[in-house]
């Protein structure tokens, strides 16, 4: 085998590796984008239950006054979410609004025992709890995909391919700052 043939084979292998790395970065970026869209889709599921929640709360005047404001805050925060832009701060705002609403509902249940007995209210609470679990899971998947993407552009030799061709920046994972505030420990990343 002459040296030109060896050179051609090595060049071919390098080109193939670059193409594979380039495509890998693209597919991981798309996976992170899709996972983000999934989080937004799950968040928007809340819009479906808000009308039901309003119907139930209208039956209880005292309950309604406290919770209506929180429903409005949640609706407004949901309106600010976009599946095209990975805005983790806006997502944190929605999560805070949801937490406030659920807390408000729990407090109202204590002062309104008949509300607890309301079948529709029980179903709504269960639905909200499941939606929150789904959002938590969607965020976990998003963070996993972001980690895979970040690894994909930072490890060698992908970092070279990315800096020359893909030119993608590192993505931020979603951190629940309110939940983090409860911990004394802060990781030194």
């Amino acid at each position, binding site marked *: 085998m002459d040296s030109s043939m060896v050179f051609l084979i090595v060049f071919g292998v390098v080109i193939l590796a670059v193409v594979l790395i380039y495509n890998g970065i693209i597919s*991981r970026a798309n*996976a992170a984008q*899709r*996972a983000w*869209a*999934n989080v937004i889709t*799950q968040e928007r599921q809340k819009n479906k239950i808000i009308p039901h929640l309003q119907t139930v709360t209208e039956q209880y005047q005292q309950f309604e006054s406290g919770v209506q404001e929180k429903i409005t805050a949640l609706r407004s925060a949901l309106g600010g979410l976009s599946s095209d832009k990975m805005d983790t701060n806006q997502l944190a705002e929605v999560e805070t609004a949801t937490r406030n609403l659920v807390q408000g509902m729990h407090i109202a249940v204590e002062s309104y025992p008949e509300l607890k007995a309301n079948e529709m209210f029980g*179903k709504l609470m*269960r*639905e909200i709890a*499941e939606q929150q*679990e*789904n*959002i*938590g*899971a*969607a965020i*976990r*998947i*998003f963070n*996993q*995909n972001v980690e*895979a993407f970040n690894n994909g552009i930072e490890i060698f030799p992908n970092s070279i391919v990315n800096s020359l061709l893909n030119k993608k920046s590192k993505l931020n994972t979603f951190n629940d700052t309110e939940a983090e505030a409860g911990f004394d420990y802060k990781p030194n990343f």
Partner: protein
Amino acid sequence: MDKPSSSANQQLALFLDSLSIQIAGAHKREDLRAILRKVSAFGRPLRYDNRAYWISLSAALLTAALALLSLYFYPNNVAAPWFAAAAVLTSLVFASLIYVRRNKINGLSDALYQRDVYLDNAWQSEPYHGKSLAAQLGQQFSEFRRGNHLREISWLVKGEYQGSEHHFEYHAYNFHYVDRRQVTTTDSKGRVRTRTVYDHHYRFGLYLPFEFVRDIAISSSWFGGFFSGSYKPASVEFNRKFKVKAQNELAAAKFLKPAVVVEIEDLGKELSELNLEFSSSGQLCISYAQNICSWQRQYGLDNPEQFLREIEGDQTLTRLHNTLKRIHTLMRFSDNNF
């Protein structure tokens, strides 16, 4: 064999027979306690006096050795081979008798511990025919289409699980299948030989009614399936480990909510070679490579006090319980709250 020893052994044999009947009829933990109290009250360890058998075995072995020596020094001795054969046969008989006696007590300890495991896990035995049941399950699940020579259910129990929202019955099984293949070898002289090799495999799993989802297969060890459509959820980790096949991709997308995806990811970390098949008749078969329904006792009837303490403990199979809990979570996310 001296008289007192023979009578003690007879007494023990009768006692063990009565224990065997009582263990088979035990339906409550109190029944098991009563059996162990009876063992403690027997007054002596549950052990056969095998001295006579050991002496007979030693004598037979000595005779066999002498006969073989005689054959070695006097090859023309006609009687020696007969003596040797008879002595070897006698040795085998006494060795078997000792083994059977020892095994009987171990077998009863196993049976009693198994009753306890069944009670603690609320299991019931069900009559079944291994090959027929595997064939029947193969109509619904491709899991039972493994193996080209033999497919059989080798163990089966029926149990139930009560979760916060759903109650369900399940069957836990062990599946044994055999692959037959031809192996061709060539020796140093160039002669080609073909022989048949049988590879035995075991898989384990649960099957249960799951009304909320149909016609979806999620597999980490793919081997074929009934459905042609495929679906990939958003999780890179899930897609790296599992493949999803479905009759209707929309149904798969609807079922694989984020919470379901992470639940299956976590289940896949606990159970290797995990497959989930949702049949068209509303049944779920969840199968894996390791036996999560196995148990191991520490003590036996030869140590009744310690054995009683062990029986008093909880024999709930943790990994099985966790798997059932995860199945319940899948149900919770697949049902309709309204």
